[in-house]
């Protein structure tokens, strides 16, 4: 086990369309085990781009990325999919549940994909997570029957199903009202406290960021 869960070294990223723009300029930072880190910055400062690189979905960058000591840079599509499945949990701004499946199934699918536990065990674990997040009563509903805040809690349960090394959030409260945002924040806080869960959340909400363990502030592609 490495000292750092996430270790980004000299990350650079350009967009070439229509003219060459440097989005990320030689970024380096680390996230320790059990830390609750937020990445803050104005719209367009490159924080989302950084998250996609850290989450392995964007492979078009320069620099090196280590997850728990394992070099991720240069791995192929299938290997990265495996890494995302097993070691990274996601919570997005627009909830992104699979509308074709029930809440319970949505939470279970990444677990079934990993195949580490039997279907019964995964169902049990999913139920437990949904229970913790207060969504147990809704677990047989379809996603379009839930409110935004409820969906976001389901997304968090889904992120937790494979006991990931790190949960990444892309403006997870950006689309929620104050009350729901606080609820989601409290859940994150509990996760770090009780489960020692590492969290990396991208946000432009100052209030949210202030209450995290550490803020990485970005401006024009560099950390300030």
């Amino acid at each position: 086990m490495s000292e750092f869960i996430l270790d980004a070294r000299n990350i650079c990223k350009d967009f070439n369309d229509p003219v060459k723009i440097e989005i990320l300029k030689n970024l380096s930072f680390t996230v320790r085990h059990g830390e609750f880190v937020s990445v803050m910055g104005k719209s367009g400062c490159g924080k989302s781009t950084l998250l996609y690189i850290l989450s392995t979905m964007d492979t078009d960058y320069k620099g090196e990325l280590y997850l728990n000591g394992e070099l991720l840079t240069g791995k192929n599509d299938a290997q990265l999919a495996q890494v995302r499945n097993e070691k990274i949990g996601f919570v997005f701004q627009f909830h992104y549940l699979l509308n074709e499946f029930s809440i319970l199934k949505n939470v279970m699918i990444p677990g079934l994909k990993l195949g580490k536990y039997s279907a019964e065990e995964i169902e049990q674990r999913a139920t437990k997570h949904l229970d913790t997040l207060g969504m147990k009563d809704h677990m047989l509903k379809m996603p379009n029957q839930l409110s935004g805040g409820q969906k976001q809690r389901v997304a968090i349960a889904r992120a937790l199903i494979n006991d990931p090394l790190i949960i990444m959030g892309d403006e997870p409260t950006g689309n929620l009202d104050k009350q729901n945002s606080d609820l989601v924040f409290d859940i994150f806080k509990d996760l770090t406290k009780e489960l020692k869960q590492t969290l990396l959340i991208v946000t432009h909400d100052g209030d949210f960021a202030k209450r995290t363990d550490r803020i990485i502030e970005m401006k024009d592609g560099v950390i300030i």
Partner: protein
Amino acid sequence: MNLKLLIEISIGLLRARIKQSIVAAVGVMFGVCMFVTLLSFMNGLNQMLDGLIINRTAHIRLYNEIKQSTDQPVNASKAYKENINFIHSIKPKDKGKAIYNSESIMHALNQDSRVLGIAPKINTPIFYSAGGIELPGLINGIDIEAEQKLFYLNDYVIEGKSADLSIVNNSILLGNGVAEKLMVEIGDVIYVTTAQGTISALKVIGLVQFGLMEIDNTQSYTSIQTAQKLMGESNNYITDINIKLKDLSQAPALAKDYAKRFELDAIDIQTANAQFETGSSVRSIISYAVGITLLIVAGFGIYNILNMMIYEKMDTIAIMKATGFSGKDVKYIFIFLSLIIGIAGGVFGLAFGYMLSSIIDQIPFETASLPTIKTYPIYYNPTYYLIGFTFALLTTYIAGLLPARKAGSIDPVEIIRGK
């Protein structure tokens, strides 16, 4: 790769778009259904038409052709051996149409393992007369049992029983056309005049109809013994030996072999009826082409629907990729989706194809020329069902492949960022 999960997700996606999926499956179903029905019907007709000729035709016919000898005496002479001999005005010698040594030839043929059965026959031209009318015709002296076993004579007997030929002395099974012209019925007596001039009275015990007017207007059957009596010949006189083989395709080779071995003329079914083979295969090709076209059209339908579905499911694809499904997994999900449509459409298509064939099989189809056919003929062959199903899977797989590959290569970042 977790196949069960991928298939489960495919089914989930299909259920979310159940109407479109059903439309796609119905397209495949229609294609498979028509493919199976068309082939069964076409080949039913083929078999019926071929049966008209092939059932009644010997695979090999052994007989004596009237012709000049190929071995002229001058060629045997040593004195002229080195010369080139021109012989003018050769005339055929009439050895008669009888097959000599017929008993031992038939014995040898019966021992041959490639032969299914043989039927000896006497074939001779005659005149039928009843009242004042005389009609030219052909009488066939047959071994009734062998004729039934090898050439299904009873299928063509429309009145009376062919077995009566061997029970009633001096009896005749008359062609339907002949009977109509002579205005005779079962139980009447007609007179038959042979080429030698002998006149015999024969009792009509049945009517036969092959559906080919040319034959029905001239031919009649009698037992081999009666025919020998008519012609005043001994009881080993026969003019033809009809052979049915176990394997039809061996006929040309065996015909040559027998001709040489028994010093007789032999003609095989392929040479005698080449046009039927051609007709059958052309009809088959047409029905295959139509059926496969229908399936390809169904394939385009699936391609369209899957393409649309992928655009609708961009978010789903992106989230699956974000949560650990690789491009390959996503590709398989969409291929499975397509195959499920193909399998469902295929299974229902086969069922409906069978039903439609059965319905056609019940439709009355009566024609004077085909006494044994009462409804439209259908040939139930499992091969057509197998081909139909295989093609359904193949077209749906190919139709699904391109959209599936597109889905597999979708970049989740673009979708998530695009919001």
